[in-house]
């Protein structure tokens, strides 16, 4: 049969398109693209924990015979670097790739010509970012465990915490990216947001070392909350009550960020 005779058949209008299905179609696009480059990302996924734990945990850590917060430094810093790396992945994946899909490669526009909706585009891309973050965090956990950087098997649960934390960072950053005219704002976001958060929100030292005002700033970041839960798990003294509060805060960032992302995506793409 040629391309053809079907066109005259007057195909009936299809049923409503299921919302979840649209997001999975979008996720499947990003996963297809990722399949071309995943090997490189796995190599760097093993490299990062080796470098951080080697230099900080086992290098710098040996200069601190008393450890930090009552534990050897490597045990203190490993869960922090885990969540901080997940945050970096989330922010990285929700800036330039989002701008590219809006403006340079325009994949979002291709999706919008199909039954896929704006919410599907945001949700599908976000799910892919979480998948990326899960791969990075899972690799980190394997390497860290092999190096003896975690004390308790509870640390397994730090993986979903890191993924939720990635959602808390990626969703609002996606909204930010859709709001930017070009990539000029990303440098500002990294220098004023991601890097200071990486350095000061409890990854490398307890925030009690900071001036009081800075402590409150650190507590406001989603990363600090994720790190607290991950550290409690890794050190083997999880606390359900405080974990619920921390995770609730992360969820709030994720949900509000998602709503904002849908709003700004719609404004940007449906003109």
């Amino acid at each position, binding site marked *: 049969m040629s391309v053809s005779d079907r066109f*005259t058949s007057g195909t009936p209008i*299809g049923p409503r398109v299921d919302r979840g*299905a649209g997001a999975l179609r979008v996720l499947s696009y990003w996963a297809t693209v990722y399949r*071309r480059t995943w090997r490189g990302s796995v190599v760097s996924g093993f490299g990062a924990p080796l470098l951080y734990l080697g230099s900080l945990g086992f290098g710098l850590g040996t200069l601190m015979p008393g450890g930090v917060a009552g534990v050897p430094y490597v045990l203190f810093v490993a869960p922090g670097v885990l969540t901080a790396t997940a945050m970096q992945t989330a922010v990285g994946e929700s800036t330039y790739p989002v701008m590219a899909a809006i403006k340079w490669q*325009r994949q979002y526009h291709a999706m*919008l*010509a199909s039954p896929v909706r704006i919410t599907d585009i945001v949700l599908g891309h976000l799910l892919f970012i979480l998948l990326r973050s899960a791969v990075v965090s899972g690799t980190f956990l394997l390497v860290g465990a092999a190096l003896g950087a975690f004390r308790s098997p509870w640390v397994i649960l730090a993986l979903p915490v890191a993924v939720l934390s990635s959602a808390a960072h990626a969703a609002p950053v996606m909204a930010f990216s859709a709001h930017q005219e070009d990539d000029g704002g990303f440098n500002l976001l990294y220098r004023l947001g991601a890097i200071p958060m990486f350095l000061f929100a409890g990854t490398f030292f307890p925030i009690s070392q900071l001036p009081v005002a800075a402590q409150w700033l650190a507590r406001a970041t989603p990363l600090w909350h994720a790190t607290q839960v991950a550290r409690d798990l890794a050190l083997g003294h999880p606390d359900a009550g405080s974990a619920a509060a921390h995770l609730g805060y992360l969820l709030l960032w994720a949900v509000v960020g998602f709503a904002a992302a849908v709003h700004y995506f719609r404004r940007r*793409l449906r003109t």
Partner: protein
Amino acid sequence: MSSTSTKGAPGTGAGAPARSAGRVRPEAKEDPDRPSPTPVLIRGRGLRKTFDDFTAVAGVDFDVHRGEAFGFLGPNGAGKSSTMRMIGCVSPVSAGKLSILGLDPRTDGPRIRARLGVVPQRDTLDEELTVRENLLIYARYFGIPRAVAAARAEELLRFAHLTERADSRVEPLSGGMKRRLTIARALVNEPDILLLDEPTTGLDPQARHMLWDRLFRLKRQGVTLVLTTHYMDEAEQLCDRLVVMDGGSIAAEGTPRQLIDRFSTREVLELRFAADDHSPYAAVVQDLADRVEVLPDRLLLYTDGGDEAAAAVHARGLTPLSALVRRSTLEDVFLRLTGRRLVD
């Protein structure tokens, strides 16, 4: 740079052409010699698109029937692409009514888009992926099962003459190949309506003819084509019916033949003189044509009898460097309706 002068009686009698180039609207909506009504797939009534303080589409009425090739013609900024984006359900309607396949884009965008094929002005291909992957990914957006998508991709690769490049990346392909891939991709959901926004802009002549040939086949197979273009040859080749847009409004509507009959004459006599300014000659030949237009390098005499007019010019002792008689084209209509000013 140009001036238009009109003789008293309109030459063709097919409706009275207005004197000024610009808004010329046919008075009757229903054309008596239009074939019996086929189902209307797209209907616009008073359709408007406004951005903050800018009006891109200023209230247009049109019907697109099943199986026809319908064109939006107009200079840059006429509102063609904005109209197409509203039909494609990616741009919200600002005011007026738009119905596509009997559905309202405001509430049924995804269902309508499931039945459309869209060839956007700028390609949105994924250049990192292969030709085939582009088709398969796109099929997935429509929820087409993998096995069906794979079979269709083969078929469409053949249709677009891309089978040999199926597994090469898109990035190094020529502009014509990318365009054909974009069209193939737009057909992956077997759409009722194919929307083409300036399908051949930027392509070389071979690539354009190849593309027209593909579009012809689709049209013969009964696909409803809606396209925008500012190439008159493309419109004459492809469109059964078209509207000429200018400044966000529809200036004229009809078949290419009807538009030529209504807004131009059967033939055009082009006269070149050895002079920097051709306007003095216009006065001398004014009465030999329905309308005389002065261009920087030549005179255009709109007349039903080009050879007779040429003979009459020579009989008056004028000796043009060249005298060329040609048939009127859609381009003459287009320039008459939208003017010769430069739009950037």
